[in-house]
């Protein structure tokens, strides 16, 4: 038999072809796609859309100068901005038309010292709120103009997270949960599924190295995580008014580190379980409670002390906090250092444990 020269197989070709096989396998599996993308998005719609705490703001159009607003003292001005979404228009007729159509709650203009409020009686509750709110600010301005300190004051506090609108709060947490699910399940089901089908042994008898196989799985899982991120942020911004802050892009490397940490959970589950279903169930058993304890679904700020401590042990908690900090709370990249250390350390320890427990076949 003529022996052809044994060219060293191109490392990259094998790596890319394994990656392509894994990616196709994932995107063609409706269940995987549903649980990785559609299912978490349903929660985003639920929390971000239906429970939208932020939509009680009044939409008011200002025509011409309204010095009363500019002259409000700083604290009053802040609460005015919280209560009123003020836009400026030069077209008085168009602004009135907006109010008639219900696109705006009121149009305001100054006539001498009088604030004239044009509103629609179509929605009586809204019109009452509009009039009441604006009256309150006129009263405040009058008090301020008198030069006397007000005799009484009032402060209001919302019971929801003080600093964030609903969508701002839920997006990073739900994204973290979605990525944790798909990374852990992907790693667990690949490892266990390939072992059961003996594909793992078949690959072991090919020149592909373990490093190529593992890195292909990691790269595909990270790619899936970034697709999840793009869809989450895209939908959040387009449909629910999500506003990203300065260093939001730090969410990308954070998500990569998180993917590694959650893959290590999946690998461990895959190494421990004997069947594919067992591996996926074990991953689920770990990821779902972790998501609750990490504040993916609701804030844990009011939770008892012991729960807070347990929460701090969860890698997802640190990913969620770090992503919130940079993506919606306006913190800088430096705020993520601790989260990186915890996520990568977690991945390293559990990954090493999974390697120790690893078996090529299920026999």
């Amino acid at each position: 038999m003529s022996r052809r020269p044994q060219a060293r197989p191109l490392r990259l070709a094998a790596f890319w072809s394994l990656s392509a096989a894994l990616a196709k396998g994932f995107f063609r599996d409706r269940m995987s796609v549903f649980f990785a993308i559609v299912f978490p998005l349903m929660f985003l719609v639920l929390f971000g859309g239906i429970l939208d705490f932020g939509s009680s703001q009044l939409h008011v159009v200002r025509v011409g100068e309204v010095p009363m607003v500019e002259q409000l003292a700083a604290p009053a001005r802040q609460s005015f901005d919280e209560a009123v979404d003020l836009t400026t228009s030069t077209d008085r007729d168009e602004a009135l038309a907006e109010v008639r159509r219900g696109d705006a709650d009121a149009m305001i203009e100054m006539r001498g010292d009088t604030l004239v409020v044009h509103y629609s009686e179509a929605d009586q509750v809204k019109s009452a709120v509009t009039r009441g709110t604006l009256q309150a600010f006129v009263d405040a301005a009058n008090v301020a103009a008198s030069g006397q300190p007000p005799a009484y004051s009032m402060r209001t506090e919302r019971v929801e997270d003080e600093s964030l609108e609903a969508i701002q709060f839920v997006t990073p947490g739900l994204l973290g949960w979605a990525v944790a699910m798909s990374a852990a399940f992907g790693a667990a089901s690949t490892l266990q599924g390939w072992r059961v089908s003996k594909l793992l042994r078949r690959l072991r008898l090919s020149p592909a190295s373990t490093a190529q196989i593992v890195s292909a799985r990691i790269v595909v899982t990270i790619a899936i995580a970034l697709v999840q991120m793009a869809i989450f942020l895209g939908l959040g911004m387009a449909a629910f008014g999500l506003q990203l802050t300065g260093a939001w892009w730090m969410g990308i490397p954070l998500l990569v580190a998180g993917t590694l940490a959650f893959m290590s959970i999946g690998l461990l589950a895959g190494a421990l379980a004997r069947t594919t279903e067992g591996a996926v169930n074990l991953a689920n058993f770990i990821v779902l409670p972790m998501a609750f304890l990490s504040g993916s679904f609701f804030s844990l700020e009011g939770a008892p002390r012991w729960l807070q401590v347990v929460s701090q042990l969860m890698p997802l908690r640190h990913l969620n906090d770090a992503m919130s900090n940079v993506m919606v709370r306006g913190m800088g990249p430096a705020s993520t250092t601790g989260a990186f250390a915890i996520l990568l350390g977690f991945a390293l320890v559990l990954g090493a444990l999974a390697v120790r427990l690893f078996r090529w076949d299920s026999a």
Partner: protein
Amino acid sequence: MTEAIEARGLRKTYGDLVAVDDLSFTVHEGEFFGILGPNGAGKTTTLEMVEGLRKPDGGEVRLLGETPWPRNASLLPRIGVQLQATSFFERLTAREQIRTFAALYAVPAARADSWLERVGLADKAGTRCEDLSGGQQQRLAIASALVHDPEVVFLDEPTAALDPQARRNLWELLSSLNDSGRTVVLTTHYLDEAEALCDRVAIVDHGRLLQLDSPENLVRGLDAGVRIHVAPEALDLDRARALRGAGEVVDEGTSLMIQTRQPGEVLAALAELDALEGLRVKGATLEDVFLTLTGREYRA
């Protein structure tokens, strides 16, 4: 010339169970070699030790002159393996499947596609492997094992779980695999399959090698003679026993069986008596070899 495979004194135990017990054999280059035995005889374990998937507890293996265990990266491109289960990537089409395997060996996609054609799956190239029939999956698995044109190919029970028709169809493909001088090692629990395909057959049972030779020699060595069957009405037992050249005669109910080493004489005598009704003549098969070797019926 280096032998394709040299196994000496192979031994593997799982707890108390001795799966393979002091097994020695040699496979020549270009040979179609069969390992035949009932389920649980230790065929797969033997194969796994030769391939380098398992470490033998005792003995030694040389595969193409090299040691397969621990994982020998320089050996891997030279061997092709089809494992018992059809091990595929989930949800890929036949073409994507074989191209993925090809890429692991740096084989261009066009060569992979030509293998699909060779195993008769060209029109199924766009079908996902889950939707292929059992026979088609086996063809794809065999093509995937051969895509890098290995010198030695291992086929572990490639026709198990196929219906008889699909099994026969696959034989044609299998028998062509060593045309180009490739060495083929096949395990099977089908006697007819070993007889039809293999140059030499190792018969194993309980992890031990019972006999190793070509199927013809195995049968000839049995010296079992020929069995001639006629209808029971054709002649009675005593006249049958009195026939020239007749050995043992047994009334099997539906037919009368006459064992003989001189079939010519017996047939001539039967013709004289005009007792050829329901005539069937059967030579010995590997089944008889197995029966003689183990003293029990062959059960796959």
